[in-house]
């Protein structure tokens, strides 16, 4: 006799299964349609552009996730390096990643097996003989893996209880349902094996290890009982499995993430990471003050969230004890969406920002993007937070007095301080630097930015950068009093209108002077020119000074440093350099060129860098109530590696860290330097 299995053995009316399945599928479609209607509360947005690219990276993600799982990739790469296969694939921490993989693979295999059984039964009879036995042992073992996975997850959720997970009844329901469905499957198999294989062909039985164990336990029973129990359990297993699906569908249980999260990944943003959406200034509403102001994709995001809490763990504001928690923002918005979907009144039952998410939360964000970097399902937190700020600023004018002064100063003086634009180029006096308008024989502009123009500490960075550019023979000019704020912080604080006025004005002046290339020492200006100005007609080649110095050094245009430093140095990666633009090798190349520089990496570096707390216009607002300063938490990480010199490459990071170091009285122990200053100091001149 050839090994094999008779489908519907001992079962009458087995085909009734198809009727039930059809009903359950109907229920799923219905539940999904109800959800689609919720997403359609949102505004339109095109997320089906570049279909080829979307499909390709989706498949890569599916294969990587399904077959190898992201966790295993991380083992093959250095910690803290962005992998190259697909931009938004994120590694996960080992334990939950492994457990998720077991469940994913186990259930996936069981589903596949059912499908193959179906094919084999009705079409090609291929599951016989050795193939059947091999099939049987593989499927059976994967089912056992799924059970192990569920147990691991239960231990984590209810034993270890990490803070980033909040336990809701639906989590336990989902886990128990999976467990019951799989276990009853084994019970059915056990009865079948006890009644057939154990009696007739005992050497086949161990090829179904899960069922075999149970079959041995049942084997004492008489045939009549076995057959009865088998039949009963078959129907129980069937109804539980289908019931699970129906229940999950209707209650919109978290298991929907199996479908919605991949969908969300498919529709994810392909725009550059640092480009915010453009507000239609001719429209009626600006920003998001109610759920309908978001786009359908932003609402899909809310349902794709698996509540894994990775964003919460990564958020610097949360780590510093501020009210903001990116996970909670997403979940609050989801509640708002559900409530708005049910509500019959045109005005919201609860105000989305003030009564749901919380104003403080909206203002706490530094737009550091750590949450998005951590999110496994490509949810876009920063855009939502900025959209809510836009509503507060443009529609309600609800913001702090500091921001009001900040806007007013920029409107009237072109800089965040009440300082005259006329004195903007004063720092450069006596350095022999060209100014636009006087001698415009260059197409390369050194964008100095507001901080370096007026703050004496930051001016020293600009002086170091200009000196090194001159020594390398770079032909450049500065704008002097023609320069105005680039608008980064203005935009991230939500004032799109003022931002657009600045962009239009700056692009006009830059074009008038035939500027083709912009060099800047500010990652925020870098992002603005690289990712935001092009949308308004300003296309320039943009270089950050870390890239420029690394490039000039490798070409030999810049003198290699001679002086031995003989110090422990740590580098703080600015969010807008590392996480937004993947620039973290350039500064390290520069540091590597300095003799006897002992580079020690912080616990969180490169794309995992911990924000200084100054981005997203936070530097211009008062420290919000509660918690510590974000820069304080960052300094703890710095202190842990005991550096003599703390190097960074951003005026915001410099200001925040310099301030924090002084605040803690560490200015003699830790020297805070920009990479350009570090380079110039080691020339030995």
């Amino acid at each position: 006799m050839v090994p094999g299995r008779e489908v519907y053995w001992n079962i009458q009316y087995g085909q009734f299964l198809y009727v039930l399945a059809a009903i359950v599928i109907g229920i799923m479609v219905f539940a999904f349609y109800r959800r689609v209607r919720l997403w359609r509360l949102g505004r339109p947005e095109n997320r089906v552009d570049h279909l080829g690219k979307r499909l390709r990276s989706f498949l890569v993600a599916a294969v990587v996730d399904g077959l190898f799982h992201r966790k295993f990739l991380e083992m093959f790469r250095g910690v803290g390096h962005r992998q190259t296969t697909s931009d938004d694939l994120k590694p996960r921490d080992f334990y939950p990643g492994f457990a998720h993989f077991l469940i994913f693979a186990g259930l996936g295999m069981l589903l596949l097996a059912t499908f193959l059984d179906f094919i084999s039964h009705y079409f090609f009879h291929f599951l016989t003989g050795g193939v059947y036995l091999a099939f049987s042992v593989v499927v059976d073992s994967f089912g056992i893996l799924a059970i192990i996975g569920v147990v691991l997850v239960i231990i984590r959720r209810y034993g270890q209880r990490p803070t980033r997970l909040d336990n809701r009844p639906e989590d336990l329901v989902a886990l128990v349902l999976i467990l019951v469905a799989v276990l009853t499957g084994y019970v059915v198999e056990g009865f079948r094996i006890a009644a057939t294989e154990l009696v007739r062909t005992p050497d086949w039985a161990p090829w179904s290890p899960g069922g075999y164990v149970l079959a041995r336990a049942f084997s004492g029973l008489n045939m009549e009982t076995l057959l009865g129990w088998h039949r009963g359990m078959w129907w129980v297993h069937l109804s539980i499995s289908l019931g699970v699906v129906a229940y999950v569908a209707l209650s919109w249980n978290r298991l929907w993430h199996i479908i919605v999260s991949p969908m969300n990944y498919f529709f994810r943003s392909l725009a550059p990471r640092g480009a915010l959406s453009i507000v239609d200034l001719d429209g009626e509403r600006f920003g998001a003050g109610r759920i309908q102001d978001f786009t359908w994709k932003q609402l899909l995001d809310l349902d794709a969230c698996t509540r894994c809490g990775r964003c919460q763990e990564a958020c610097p504001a949360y780590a510093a004890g501020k009210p903001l928690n990116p996970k909670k923002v997403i979940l609050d918005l989801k509640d708002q969406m559900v409530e708005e979907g049910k509500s019959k009144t045109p005005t919201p039952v609860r105000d989305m920002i003030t009564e749901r998410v919380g104003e403080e939360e909206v203002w706490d964000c530094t737009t550091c993007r750590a949450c998005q970097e951590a999110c496994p399902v490509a949810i876009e937190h920063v855009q939502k937070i900025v959209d809510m700020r836009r509503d507060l600023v443009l529609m309600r004018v609800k913001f702090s007095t500091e921001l009001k002064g900040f806007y007013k100063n920029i409107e009237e003086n072109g800089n965040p301080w009440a300082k005259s634009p006329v004195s903007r180029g004063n720092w450069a006096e006596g350095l022999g630097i060209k100014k636009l308008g006087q001698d415009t024989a260059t197409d390369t502009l050194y964008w100095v930015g507001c901080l370096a123009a007026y703050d004496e500490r930051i001016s020293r960075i600009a002086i170091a950068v200009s000196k090194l550019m001159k020594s390398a023979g770079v032909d450049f000019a500065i704008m002097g009093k023609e320069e105005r704020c680039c608008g980064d912080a203005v935009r991230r604080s939500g004032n799109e209108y003022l931002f657009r006025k600045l962009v239009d004005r700056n692009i006009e002046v830059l074009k008038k002077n035939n500027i083709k290339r912009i060099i800047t020492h500010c990652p925020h200006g870098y992002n603005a020119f690289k990712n935001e100005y092009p949308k308004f007609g300003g296309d320039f080649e943009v270089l950050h000074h870390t890239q420029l110095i690394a490039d000039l050094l490798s070409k030999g245009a810049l003198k290699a440093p001679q002086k031995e430093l003989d110090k422990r140095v740590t580098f703080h990666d600015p969010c807008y350099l590392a996480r937004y633009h993947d620039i973290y090798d350039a500064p390290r190349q520069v540091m590597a060129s300095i003799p006897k520089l002992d580079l020690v990496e912080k616990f969180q570096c490169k794309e995992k860098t911990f924000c200084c707390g100054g981005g997203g216009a936070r530097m211009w607002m008062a420290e919000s109530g509660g918690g510590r300063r974000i820069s304080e938490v960052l300094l703890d990480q710095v202190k842990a590696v005991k550096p003599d010199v703390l190097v960074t490459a951003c005026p915001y990071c410099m200001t925040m860290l310099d301030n924090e170091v002084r605040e803690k009285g560490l200015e003699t122990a830790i020297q805070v330097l920009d990479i350009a200053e570090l380079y110039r100091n080691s020339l030995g001149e």
Partner: protein
Amino acid sequence: MNIVVCVKEVPNPTFPVEVDIQKNAVKSEEWNYVINPYDEVALEEAVRIKEKFGGQVTVITLGAERAGAILRKCLCIGADRAILIPSDSAFAWDGFAIANVLSKAISRLPHDIVLCGYQSIDRGGAEVGSIIAELLGLPVVTAVVKLDIAPDGKSATVCRRLERGARAVKRSPLPALFTADLMLNEPRYPTLPCIKWALKQEIEKLDVKSLGVEAGPLTEFVTISRPPPKKVFIPTGALSPAERIKLLTGGGAAKKSSSNIVEGAPHEVAKKVVDFLAEKRFLL
């Protein structure tokens, strides 16, 4: 409640303004002009009253054509009508000449309240408001820090700033003219819908001649002389940003040698400060 607010454009105070002594005027720089901050406060108050009692807010200015820009800002903040009386020479006029023209224009507009800034930050004459009131025969209260309109809209109770923190409370029937002190309120930042509305409005123009006044100053300008230069504190990088800001806002590095500094445990200090405020009648 119809309110007329007189506003003026002034040189942006953060610019190092250069005075042209020959012409008795400041040298013009790019976007060198802003609304006189006192007038902005007056306008804000007018808009708040309108929001409570209804009516119309009209802003009016006498000045160069480019002053249309500040009128537009006034529309953003909440004015309903904006009137420009163009004059290329008014910047050199004295208070009487300006008040004379403005009062004629105001007399043609319905007005229950006229609001002016207490003074302009460029010349600081602090006289135009009072002269307008005189010419229109209205009661006037200057340097107002609090303005309450009676529910029936027939009178106003106002609080005016005196020296050393003292306050005088006065009551006046309406119509009346008030000049606003900077402490009266915190002017709002306009919403984008308001800005967009304001951009579509027309700025009305009123010819000085059509007002039928003999326009011109009564006094004559002779010269301006400069005071000796003052030493200004410059923050250096040796200080932390927090210290720099403290010094800048504090006005200098020197410690104040006053006997008013109270020291001790926080609650004692707080009590002394409250006592001091009460004694000086800051706490009403």
